[in-house]
């Protein structure tokens, strides 16, 4: 396991809007996450959790402070650098965000092709990970023919197929019933452990907090570090 933290954030601020409409949503964020950690981020709606996730995920450009992801400083990084860093991150969204015109396998394969050596390899990797998430019977199903839990499994497979060093998940269980929510999170936990990647997950779901190695809480744009070592 490398010594370099997967995420290293120092004094990160973020504001939306300009002039009179300017609104600060993140203030003075400090956060370090190491490889192998599963960190859960909680906090009331509107506190800035999603904003933080999009910044870490290189989906939005940070403005002030320092934000290093996988050793790359994102503050002031070019669009090409941002695209490159995105390829090392797996994303799992609240709504699964699968491509409706692609089958389960094709959805995963779109991600796999970004790093696989050949299309054949991408296909093999995609099928293998779909089997791993328990969808061996559903490879050629379109998302519209899958249940919510199954779709989220496809999304997990897509996020993990490239063995990313970091997985970001924003309320991945919000749209699921408690049983499949629990299954999905345990699946993430297990695959992440196998692959040794760090996971940062936003959730309101108190029933799944126990999977975390650490929980951080956000209030009004500030982190309240309440470290709980549930799995320690």
């Amino acid at each position, binding site marked *: 396991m490398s010594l370099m933290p997967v995420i290293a954030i120092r004094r990160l601020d973020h504001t939306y809007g300009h002039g009179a409409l300017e609104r600060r949503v993140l203030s003075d964020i400090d956060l370090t996450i190491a490889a192998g950690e599963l960190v859960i981020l909680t906090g009331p709606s509107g506190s800035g959790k*999603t904003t933080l*996730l*999009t910044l870490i*995920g290189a*989906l*939005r450009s940070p403005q002030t402070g320092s934000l290093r992801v996988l050793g790359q400083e994102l503050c002031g990084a070019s669009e090409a650098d941002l*695209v*490159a860093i*995105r*390829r090392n991150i797996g*994303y799992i*969204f*609240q709504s699964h*965000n*699968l*491509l*409706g*015109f*692609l089958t389960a396998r*094709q959805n995963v*394969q*779109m*991600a796999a*092709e*970004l790093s696989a050596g050949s*299309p054949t390899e991408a296909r093999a990797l995609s099928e293998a990970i779909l089997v791993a998430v328990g969808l061996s019977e559903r490879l050629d199903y379109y998302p519209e023919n899958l249940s919510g839990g199954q779709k989220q499994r496809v999304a997990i497979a*897509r996020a993990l197929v490239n063995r990313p060093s970091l997985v970001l998940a*924003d309320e991945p269980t919000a749209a699921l019933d408690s049983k499949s929510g629990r299954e999905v999170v345990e699946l993430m936990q297990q695959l992440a452990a196998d692959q040794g990647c760090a996971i940062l997950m936003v959730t309101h779901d108190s029933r799944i907090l126990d999977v975390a190695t650490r929980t951080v809480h956000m209030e009004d744009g500030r982190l309240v570090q309440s470290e709980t070592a549930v799995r320690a």
Partner: protein
Amino acid sequence: MKMPLAWLQLTRERVRLLVAVAGIGFAVILMFLQLGFRAALFDGAVRLHASFEADIFLIGPKSSALVSMQSFSQRRLYQAMAVPGVAGASPVYLGFGRFRNPETNETRGIFAVGFNPGEPVFRLGEVNRQLASIRKPDTVLFDRASRSEYGPIAARYTGGESIVTEVNDRRVRVGGLFQMGTSFAINGALITSDLNFLRLFGERSKGLVDLGLVRLAPGADPQRVKADLRAALPADVRVLSRQEYMDFEKDYWNRSTPIGYIFALGAAMGFIVGTIIVYQILYTDVSDHLAEYATLKAIGYTNGYLLGVVFQEAFLLSLLGFVPGFAISFALYDLTRGATLLPLTMDPLRAALIFALTVLMCAVSGAIAVRRLRAADPAEIFA
């Protein structure tokens, strides 16, 4: 092969794809018909020109078209024959006569061509086989593709009847048939010998010809001979190459009728309609998939990749629309040719042009539709 995202996206929604293909196919057909008719009308105007066996043509300088020729002295032909490289120079007489429909007794203007049967001027085997017939006094060959207003001449002749009628109030016999076809100002045509022609057109004299056909000796350089003829002949004749002679006729009809313009406009409408249809389809398609495109950006695809997807869709659409459009146009050409005797043919150059226009049409639409891609913001998909 990497995942053909554009193809998968296009083919997932069959109905939308069908509408798109039908729209593009329609635009393709419109362009084929408009440009086809245009070419056919102009080609029809030079069918007679094209059937003359000659390399160089002599005409009076004030001539403006086949139906409006200025005669010149036959002496110019003798002078032409003295130019090195010239194998022969034959006179052709042209004029409109009044043809009496033997059924109704009404008269109609008919185009008549007269030449010396001893120096065949036509490439038409059918005419050349019937030279003996037009050598007989007051005997003519009738164009079976003439309009019906002259009467059922061809049908009755083929049925074995002997047809006697009048041209310019002079009794003539139909001694055979040939095939030419109608054009802008010519609804029907006759071919006969020079002597018969001069009998029918009593006011014309043998010494004044309407057209001179110059044939070259084997191996002579047409450019060279044309230049020599221009130098040797006085300004009361114009010397034209085969291509120049046909262009001269087409130019006249292009200038004096709006036909060229109208059909070009029709083709342009096809192009515009096609562009709008493809744009609509692509724009809706991109809009419907914005969240998915944003997801692709989030997992590491570049904006350039997505641009490529939209342009691939545009190109696929142009292919999918062109193929049926081409096939239907082909069938419509056949159908129209049968019904109108217009020389409507599938010219490979025109097909290539229309294919290029179809691709351009889709590329233009694609270029407008990709602006919609900017709305695909990967930062919005966690929201």
